[in-house]
């Protein structure tokens, strides 16, 4: 006897529709801001748990020169078309200044030469993109901690915002400008540097010339490239999307240690 819809066929159909319903339900939940807020609550738990088990100065692993990637991938902006930045590259960054301001006692404006004269650190570390890949590179740069001491943080300062020269998206749209933020634990971490050299050469444009932030212990998007200005703030809720970074405003975690 042949059955057009045997037990197996029925089961298969039931499973397929159940799976379809689950998927449709997940898509609907995913689009709901309240559900998103619930899912996002795990980020705080992750940050607190990681900070609990980790010494605040625990170092990211450093590697040997032989481990350096020859195919270090550049992601995000790799050749910014923003006119101000294009002018800086044409002038070899001669007129470029790094501004450190906001909630500081003594705002700074540093040339690349002055930055190179600051207390520096060299480290061979792994760069982990949120997409899942890793590359290893050698970085030399000015330690951020001593720079903050020089500028003198005011008591209210709790975060540093990194304003960048590049736009991810239409040039000229203020929402396209890349920015990032970190807290003072990461800012004063010994491996947190403003890197001006990569693999013993001046930092190339695809990797953020003239300087990029290295904030080891975080995923790649926290390592802001093309940094122009570091602003000490009490809070970043008023800024742009309010979540503290270009990718954060687009749904990624502010705490990118995982």
């Amino acid at each position, binding site marked *: 006897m042949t059955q057009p819809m045997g037990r197996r066929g029925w089961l298969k159909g039931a499973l397929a529709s159940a799976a379809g319903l689950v*998927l449709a339900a*997940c898509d609907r939940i995913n689009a709901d801001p309240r559900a998103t807020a619930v*899912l996002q609550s795990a980020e705080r738990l992750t940050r607190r748990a*990681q900070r609990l*088990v980790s*010494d605040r100065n625990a170092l990211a692993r450093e590697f040997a020169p032989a481990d350096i990637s020859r195919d270090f991938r550049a992601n995000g902006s790799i050749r910014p078309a923003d006119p101000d930045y294009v002018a800086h590259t044409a002038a070899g960054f001669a007129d470029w200044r790094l501004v450190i301001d906001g909630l500081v006692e003594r705002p700074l404006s540093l040339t690349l030469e002055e930055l190179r004269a600051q207390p520096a650190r060299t480290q061979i570390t792994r760069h982990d993109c949120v*997409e899942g890949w890793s590359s290893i590179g050698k970085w030399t740069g000015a330690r951020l901690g001593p720079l903050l001491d020089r500028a003198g943080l005011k008591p209210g300062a709790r975060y540093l915002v990194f304003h960048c020269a590049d736009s991810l998206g239409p040039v000229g749209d203020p929402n396209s400008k890349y920015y990032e933020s970190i807290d003072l634990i990461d800012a004063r971490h010994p491996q947190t540097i403003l890197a001006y050299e990569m693999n013993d050469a001046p930092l190339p444009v695809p990797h953020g010339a003239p300087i990029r932030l290295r904030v080891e*212990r975080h995923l790649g998007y926290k390592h802001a490239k093309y940094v122009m200005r570091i602003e000490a703030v009490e809070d970043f809720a008023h800024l742009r999307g309010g979540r503290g970074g270009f990718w954060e405003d687009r749904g990624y975690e502010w705490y990118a*240690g995982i």
Partner: protein
Amino acid sequence: MNTGRPSRTLVYRHGLLVRITHWLNVVAVTLLLMSGLQIFNAHPALYWGQKSTFAEPWINTTASERAGRPIGVTTIGGLSFETTGVLGYSGKAGAGEPRGFPAWATIPSHRDLASGRRWHLFFAWVLVINGLVYWLGGLAGGHIRRDLVPDRRDLSPRNIWHEIVTHAQLRFPKGEEARRYNVLQKGAYLGVALVLLPLMVATGLTMSPGINAAWPWMLDLFGGRQSARTLHFIAASLVVAFVIVHLAMVVASGLWNNIRSMITGRYAIEVEEAKP
């Protein structure tokens, strides 16, 4: 005196702890798997070691073209297979797109890494807390020792062989023997709860740059972050393999009886009726 006529009786088989943690695990593992495939799709290639060797992944999926038509290609260890519609390239007719795993396997169904991570990192906590409750409760309440740790009789080669043969014939223990897990069940459940799911969590944590700084020994244990990502994927595949076999056994050994027992705790067994 026995009449020899079997009758069905309900026995209490699964305690509350097992039932609650089981169903929470069903939810968490399903959502973790599907959001995990979403995350995999952001870079559908796997490597061994500390870093990515982009030109030489040991496994990857890509979209390619043959005779003007897009195709999906999966490469494993240098061998390529066309996997159009499932891996590399998939989607409804006319709306196909390059993607690792297809829309029906990912959360959300469209490409969205940020959302995938949100689901994944939330339900990772659900899995971990649920697992801790299971282990602490199971150790304190005796479930692990009483129901899961194989005894001497379980481990005799003769018994193991007997269970393998009868399972392959889809003949399952009846009567008193059905009150307890057989040695293959014990091994499978302990293996998943003790080895596979903790391995998922450990290899997942080894991908975290924050945890790498806190516990650098984990990088050495798994051979680097990219190895950990590969092992995370392999362990997830083994979890899927377990679930497939588990569901097949559930269906073969009595679907409704098994489902009821994991909901109410009551499992029907056939017993020889004893009369005075």
